[in-house]
């Protein structure tokens, strides 16, 4: 069965510092992997996705993520955080075929301090 673990419930970083949010997944086949961001009172916005090919994927707002099959990880990174990045971040894994519903992690809340 699919599952996603985001081990960090809450992360605080200073504006301008680098960021890495961890995501580990469990899936029996090659997964679809996603990162979504949710600002307060808003729906989820897609940051980036990985299906196949290059294991380093670029997304919107300067985010990137690296797929590491050996570690079952898909960590999200940003070299320099902006105050507007403060939000909740969700990693999700989806199936390649059939009912392609997403399984979400519990999220990581990012706080950015000046």
């Amino acid at each position, binding site marked *: 069965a699919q599952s996603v673990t985001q081990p960090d419930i809450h992360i605080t970083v200073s504006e301008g510092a680098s960021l890495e949010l961890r995501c580990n997944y469990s899936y029996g086949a090659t997964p*679809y992997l996603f990162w979504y961001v949710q600002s307060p009172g*808003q*729906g989820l916005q*897609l940051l980036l996705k990985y299906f196949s090919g290059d294991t380093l994927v670029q997304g919107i707002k300067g985010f990137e993520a690296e797929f590491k099959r050996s570690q079952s990880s898909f960590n999200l990174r940003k070299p320099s955080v902006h105050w507007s990045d403060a939000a909740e971040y969700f990693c999700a894994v989806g199936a390649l075929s059939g009912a*392609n*519903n*997403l399984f*979400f992690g*519990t999220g990581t809340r990012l706080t950015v301090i000046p």
Partner: protein
Amino acid sequence: EAGVAQSPRYKIIEKRQSVAFWCNPISGHATLYWYQQILGQGPKLLIQFQNNGVVDDSQLPKDRFSAERLKGVDSTLKIQPAKLEDSAVYLCASSTQDTQYFGPGTRLTVL
């Protein structure tokens, strides 16, 4: 391109009352999903439609929750009767073949 629309944005009801949520997906998206997001958790799938047919409703509490997508476009999700534990954000999403796009959600508070 317009995104996924949902209404209402907020709803407060008392337990045992009924409530309905509406979703209008992105034009041309055949697949529509309803998720429940309880505070502090990630979204959990309730039901998935492909056009007007149900693909997966294994996580839908069918004794109180129902959903329909009669013409393969708009969808409604209903709860009757509501319980305190139904307090959550209800998210609607629609998808192309491989990516889901989410609406802003409806925040339900059951008192």
